[in-house]
Each structure stands twice: as structure tokens, then as C-alpha cells.
């Protein structure tokens, strides 16, 4: 009898020991002391994280990735312990229907109004029920000022015989077709097969002028002088252009181009939701958002932060293109069944 009671009290002691952990989970992490962030490299300056830690006492672990696919694999496994992650626009179209993201409680994000309406309510997440736009950028042309006749303004330069053998295009079907479609005055999400075939003819003719199709090293090849006109993403191209502004430049062609948005989301499996909300709201502060832009040199979706961004960055059209150009930029959308045709045309171009 005595013995059973001892055993019972031992078991009780165990339960008491385990209880706090259990309770914390049940209450969705009331008063979390931890936060795990999984984010692109060079997207969150150390001092911004340190400031959050100082203010809230929450310990933040930041892990980085370099591809959306790595993020997807982790979230699908269900055992990744992240509370805030930053997928790109096209990734959300998969993550949301798969139920991998937590629905955002807008009442807990009082600074939501700081975001630029331009980036809200996109087709991948109407009403922003799951995601908040964080940083964004464009695809455009980088070029060597000394090797071109006049400053480049149009996609026409990538199809100009004068630059034969000195043009680089991204090794990316949608981006390359996007350049041709934009030059034709069409949407880069064009679905009309006849228009797509015309674009393919243009690209087949262009291929003779193209030195290489390359998606990973375009900025270095331009900086090294291997090519003089390079299609590429603004982050890398702006970086080499900033290092050597007398020689290199980046421009979003006047016809418009691709826009991409990386978005803050909370995975459904997140265990530290209070900390996640606190962190999202902290990132929405104008001063914090401006500090991020000044450090990482990507444009922020936070409009209230703009006056606090360093004037040189605000005036840099490689980072903040003028609104008139931005109006003609589009997100890449899933084309559904048309993708098959596009795949075939792209193969014809590459195999030619």
C-alpha cells in the first residue's frame, strides 16, 4: 500500500515536471521565449534581430536557405520547427492549398497599414490571409555602359544585332519568353498559343545573338566583361553595378518586366506563434523596415519606411524602379495547360 502510494507520487512528480511543456503547447506558446526563423540569405541583418531580442527577451535562431524548394521540402516533412519563413510568390500557390501555413490574425498585426497596397491582395493570396509581402524585386537588363551605343531603355537591346555574341539571357523559360512578350506589348502571362508561337519565332531569331543562357552567374559574367548585355535579377546585378557604377548599370526595361515578392508567413506547425506575431509586427515598423533595406539593398513592401530609407537607395532605380515602370511589371503566374506548349517551344529554341 505504502509502496503504491510512493509510486503514485513519483508518477505525479513526473507529470508536474512535464506539465509546463504541455501547457505551453496547448496555449499556442503564450509568452514564448524562443523564435525560429528560416529565411533567404542576406535578408535579415543581424542588428535587426539583436534589437528584437533586446526589446522582447525572445531568443531568435535564424537559419538560411538559398532555394524555395529547400523550404518546401522542410515544411512538407512536418517536423521542421520554424515559426516564420519567407517563401516567394509562386511558392505560395502550392503552400496554401496544401494547408502548410497558419491563417494570419490581422487583429494581432496593428501595423499592417504600413504596407504598400500595390503588393497586397495578390492573386496567390487574395486578402493576405496567410502572407505579408516583405521584400520585392524585378528582372531586367544589366549592361556595360562603355560597350553600348546609348543607355539601354528597352528589351530591344537584347534583340539588337549590334550586340551579337555579347548578350546573356537567363536560363529560364518564363523569363526569356517574358522578355519577348513584353517587347511585343503583351503580358508575360500570355496564354494565346498564336502569340506564344510568334514570341518563340522572335526568340529563335534572337538565339544567334545570345552568347549563353545562364541563371546562376549572370552578374559575374557581366562584371568580368564576358558579356555586355545581360538579363538578370536586380539583386545581383545592382550589387555589381554599385561596385563599379562608372561601367555597369541595371535597368528595368520601359515595356515592363517580371516582379517578384518574397512573403512573411507562419507555418501551421509553428510552436511559437506569439513570438512569431511579435516578430512580424516588429518587422512592420517603418524604422525597422528601413534599416533592413539600407542593409540588404532590396526594396521593402513597407511604404511607411520609404522616407527613412537612405536617399541613395531610394533614388537607385535598380532597387526602386519608377512607379510608371513598376506599373508594367507582373508576377509570373501558373499558365496551367498552356505550360505544355511553352515547354515544347522552349525546347525547340534551346535545341535549335
Amino acid at each position: 500500500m505504502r509502496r503504491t502510494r510512493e509510486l503514485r507520487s513519483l508518477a505525479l512528480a513526473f507529470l508536474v515536471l512535464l506539465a509546463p511543456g504541455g501547457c505551453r503547447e496547448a496555449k499556442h506558446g503564450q509568452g514564448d521565449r524562443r523564435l525560429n526563423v528560416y529565411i533567404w540569405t542576406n535578408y535579415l541583418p543581424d542588428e535587426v534581430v539583436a534589437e528584437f531580442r533586446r526589446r522582447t527577451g525572445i531568443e531568435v535562431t535564424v537559419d538560411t536557405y538559398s532555394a524555395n524548394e529547400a523550404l518546401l521540402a522542410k515544411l512538407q516533412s512536418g517536423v521542421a520547427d520554424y515559426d516564420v519563413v519567407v517563401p516567394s510568390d509562386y511558392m505560395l500557390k502550392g503552400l496554401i492549398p496544401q494547408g502548410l501555413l497558419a491563417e494570419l490574425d490581422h487583429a494581432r498585426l496593428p501595423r499592417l497599414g504600413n504596407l504598400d497596397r500595390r503588393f497586397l491582395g495578390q492573386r496567390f493570396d487574395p486578402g493576405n490571409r496567410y502572407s505579408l509581402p516583405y521584400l520585392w524585386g524585378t528582372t531586367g537588363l544589366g549592361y556595360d555602359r562603355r560597350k553600348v551605343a546609348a543607355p539601354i531603355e528597352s528589351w530591344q537591346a537584347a534583340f539588337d544585332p549590334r550586340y551579337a555574341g555579347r548578350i546573356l539571357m537567363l536560363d529560364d523559360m518564363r523569363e526569356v519568353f517574358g522578355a519577348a512578350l513584353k517587347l511585343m506589348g503583351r503580358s508575360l502571362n500570355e496564354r494565346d498559343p498564336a502569340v506564344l508561337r510568334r514570341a518563340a519565332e522572335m526568340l529563335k531569331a534572337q538565339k544567334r545573338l545570345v552568347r549563353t543562357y545562364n541563371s546562376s552567374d549572370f552578374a559575374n559574367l557581366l562584371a568580368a566583361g564576358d558579356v555586355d548585355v545581360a538579363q538578370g535579377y536586380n539583386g545581383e546585378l545592382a550589387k555589381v553595378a554599385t561596385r563599379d557604377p562608372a561601367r555597369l548599370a541595371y535597368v528595368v526595361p520601359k515595356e515592363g518586366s517580371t516582379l517578384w515578392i518574397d512573403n512573411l508567413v507562419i507555418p501551421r506547425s509553428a510552436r511559437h506563434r506569439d513570438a512569431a506575431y511579435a516578430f512580424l509586427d516588429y518587422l512592420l515598423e517603418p524604422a525597422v523596415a528601413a534599416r533592413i533595406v539600407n542593409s540588404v539593398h532590396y526594396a521593402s513592401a513597407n511604404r511607411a519606411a520609404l522616407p527613412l530609407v537612405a536617399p541613395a537607395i531610394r533614388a537607385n532605380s535598380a532597387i526602386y524602379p519608377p512607379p510608371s515602370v513598376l506599373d508594367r511589371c507582373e508576377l509570373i503566374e501558373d499558365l496551367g495547360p498552356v505550360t505544355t506548349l511553352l515547354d515544347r517551344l522552349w525546347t525547340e529554341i534551346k535545341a535549335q
Partner: protein
Amino acid sequence: MRSGPRHAGHVLAAYTVLVYLFLYLPIAVLVVFSFNASRQTAAWQGFTLEWYRRLAQDAGLQQAVRNSLAVGGLATLVATVLGTLAALGIGRGRFRGRRATQVLLILPVVLPEVVLGAALLSFFGAIALRLSLATVVIAHVVFSVSYAAIVVRARLAGLDPSLEEAARDLGAGPWETFRRVTLPLALPGILASALLVFTLSIDDYVITSFVAGVGATTLPLHIYSLLKVGVTPEVNAVSTLLLALTISLIVVAQALLRRPAASSAG
């Protein structure tokens, strides 16, 4: 006529030099550019220790190095012990399914890393084991235990069985035979397998990228994620330090290996 062999000797020497240049020139370039004052890797602009100084201040990179060393150390310990036991069991034991065990042990060596990484990730998902540094260690043990077993087994196969028989004839029990005869003789193989496992673990990217959890960014993951913003001379500096570490490990291992060989020969 007499100059023929000498001529061939010159050609062979030149060829050897070329092969070694091919193997080591990129590494030499990496080391040299870790001291380059220019940020771009294209041209030499003078000597600097700036990148090493920055290294000392880069908390993320240091954490990655610590993680890699911790994973490498633990995985080496576990995989070498398991691999040695497996090699002994398969090499010495007589049991049903021995051949099947042997084949299954070699399988991870030929399995593409992507397959193993994806399989491990779904396995951890299925048993609801949260990803962390521990899952990285487990994954590294899984893929390196085969290598460890193969290396130790090769060493055991080369041993003269009469030495163990002699020990038993002289009255040594199984444990004493193992501790005083088999283990010392197998030691060079065990050390070699430990080195191999450590090397495999420290530079694994593919499998680690699948199973790394919170705070478990290893050095290859860190370097790879830097590629999005371009390789900095800091990466060259940290690679140079790792190279120095690896080379000293090999020198130490060589020194260790020479001693038992000399004593067993004497």
C-alpha cells in the same frame, strides 16, 4: 637509343607535375585569394588579413563551423564504432543472412545522396522526430557507417588469421584476443575509417540540406547559402583554415599509423 628511357622519364615527370598542378592549383588559388585585398576574386591587389579578421567577427559563420565540427566529431565516433563492429561481425561471424547483411551495408554507398536525404526526411516526418542538429548526426552516421565498415573490413581481410589462433592457443579468451591482438592490428584501418568519415561528414551538403533543423546550419549549408549573394573572400579564408585543419589531421593520423606498423614489423 640510350636516351630513350631517360626521355621517357622526363615525360613521365612532366606528366606527373601536370596532374598534381591540375589537382592542387585550384586549392592554391583559393588559399592565395584568402589573403587578397580585393573583394573581387579576379585580380590580385595586395596582401591583407582583413578576411580573417572579419571571420573572427562573423557569428553566423563561426556557429556553422562549430556545428560542422560537432556533427563531424559525433558522427565519426558513432559511425567508426558501428562500422568496426559490423566489419568484425561480417568478417569473423558465421550466421544466416551474412551475405545479405553485407550487401545491405554497402547499399548506402551506391545510393544517390538525394534519395537518401529525401528518405531520411520522410522517415523523420513519419516518426515525428523534430529536425535539429541531432537529426543531422543521425543522417551522417547512416551514410558513413558503410564507408567505415568497408575500410575496416579491408584491413581485417588482410590480417593473418594465424595470429589470432596463436593468441587462443596461448590461452587468451575471446575478449583478450580481441583487445590485445585483433584491435591493435586493425587500428590503422579503424583510424583511416575515422578520418574518412570525418571528411565525408564535414563536407556533406545534399543530405544535410534535407535533415538540418533549427540552429543546425553546417559549414557547407552556410557557404552554399552565401552563393546567392556571391562568394566572399571570407569563404576563401574559412576554407583555408579548414584545409589547414584537415591537413594537420592527416599528418597526425600518418604519424599514429606509422608507429604500430613499425612495432608490429619489429
